[in-house]
């Protein structure tokens, strides 16, 4: 597999620098040219607000999730790297558990910094001082039908707020616009999803109609914006167990992301051109 101007896709075997989570910095940098191609040419991503990310210590980046196949984490990482340059710290991200039962994909995701979506993983990563990206909408967000685009789903059970309080990590809301259009889901085959154990089996204008070509994402225009960090260090330690407070903060984060999604939609103008 070779595109003009791109190096061959790196092999999936682990290098000597992988860490205990299976993240391999050499793999991550060897897929960079591919991600840059998607970032610059395909989706023409504009990323703003990267300077708001704390340079050191743990950070919990909370973003909206859409687009059937979640490319968002890789584009966020690419955006941060492009804007930060030398002071870039590679973010880790939580991935829907189901992805880890897939051959190849599971290995690639892990080498790029993905871990199964478990609060234990997120907690341990934050305690090690990493930046962690979470998508509280989860499968509901990625698999939402095209007609519901730009509308954020419920934010799970607010577990990410609990995590942030316990790990004393600031929450950085992040809005992504454009991922909604990459695979417009107009229907779904429930039976196939059940048979394969997948969370959903999408029908898009090109999939499954065009077979493997349906896997090529549409070249929508993306915008990614990181919002002001929310400091949780002022909260008392018991706050993580205060459900009302956790829900309230989770809803506040959701509203901020929703507002940023709308403002970026306006700024983006055309979805494809």
């Amino acid at each position: 597999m070779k595109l003009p101007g791109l190096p061959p896709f790196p092999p999936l075997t682990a290098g000597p620098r992988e860490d205990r989570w299976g993240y391999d910095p050499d793999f991550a940098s060897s897929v960079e040219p591919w991600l840059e191609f998607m970032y610059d040419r395909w989706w023409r991503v504009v990323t703003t607000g990267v300077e708001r990310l704390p340079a050191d210590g743990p950070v919990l980046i909370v973003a909206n999730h859409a687009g059937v196949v979640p490319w968002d984490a890789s584009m966020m990482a690419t955006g941060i790297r492009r804007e930060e340059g030398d002071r870039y710290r590679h973010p880790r991200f939580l991935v829907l558990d189901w992805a880890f039962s897939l051959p190849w994909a599971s290995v690639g995701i892990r080498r790029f910094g993905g871990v199964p979506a478990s609060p234990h993983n997120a907690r341990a990563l934050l305690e090690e001082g990493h930046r962690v990206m979470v998508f509280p909408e989860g499968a509901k967000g990625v698999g939402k039908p095209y007609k519901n685009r730009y509308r954020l789903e419920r934010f799970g059970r607010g577990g990410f707020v609990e995590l942030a309080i316990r790990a004393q990590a600031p929450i950085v809301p992040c809005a992504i616009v454009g991922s909604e259009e990459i695979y417009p889901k107009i229907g779904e085959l429930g039976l196939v999803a059940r048979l394969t154990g997948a969370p959903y089996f999408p029908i898009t204008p090109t999939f499954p109609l065009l077979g493997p070509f349906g896997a090529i994402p549409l070249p929508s225009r993306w915008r990614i914006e990181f919002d002001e960090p929310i400091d949780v260090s002022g909260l008392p330690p018991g706050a993580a167990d205060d459900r009302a407070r956790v829900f309230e903060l989770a809803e506040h984060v959701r509203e901020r992301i929703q507002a940023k999604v709308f403002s970026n939609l306006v700024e983006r103008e055309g979805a494809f051109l």
Partner: protein
Amino acid sequence: MARVLVTGAASRLGTVLAAELLADPQTERVVAIDTRDVDLPADDRLVHIAADLRSPDLSALLAPHRIDAIVHNDVLQFPEPGRSVRLLHDTNVVGTLQLLAAAEHLPELRTVVLRSSATIYGSEPNAPRFFTEAMADRFPLRTRWQRDVAEVERLIAAFARRRPDVTASILRFQPILGRTLDTPIMRLVASPVIPTWMGFDPMVQVIHGDDVVEALMATLRNPLRGPVNVAAEDTVSLSRVLRRLGKRAIPLLPGAYEVVLGAAARLGLPRMDEDTMRFLRYGRGVDTTRMRTELGFEPTLSSIGAIELVAMAFEEAAA
């Protein structure tokens, strides 16, 4: 601990543990129980009881030795020709039951250490990367060995409740590597080719046999109630392990994996146990905080170090 009972003493780990105990001048007596001969130099502090744990007179055999600590090492992992699954379950569960029944009549007993296995957590795609001790019931027990381990642990926990004067430690070891050991993972890495799951490259965390013995010794010195994960700190991708060992991987399609291995077993090749198959697909990591902080034990070898050592032993054997 002064008078220690070691079960499964003829196994390599049991023998090394007994030798280590005898090397300690504070040890008054080592009672080694195994139906097989125990390969140790004669020592007047060493008593070998050639009996099965399931023998009815176990209680009478143990009574005269005033045992104050038991290391229950006789928990077997995999069936093989001449050792059916039925016999395995018998040895593991009924053997433990009988051992604990006899232990009820040991008034001086203060410590029980079980050599358990981290296999109790299973190997799952959606597992936390590092299981803590509290997560043993996270996933269903899928294999016979997992169910055996869980039952043996339950028996030990129930015994600890009946005898509050006894501290029962359960050490959950990750797969044990060591040149002279006969463990599922050693059988696997000793074979010339290794069947892997196409498209999967699990994270593997192991512990070296020498560190296993040291962990058991550390627990005898500083017994801790309940389960403790024992493993090296790092986890390593299987592909790196195989590269270091110089082994050829034969990737099999996930749908065909069990079928191909089943056919190979029928042709006389060694049969791979279910747990190892799952481990090769999804791997497993455990959290070792309790081991390091409460038990105060630190393995000398990392996972990659243990693999390195085994690789060197293989190279030596080949030269």
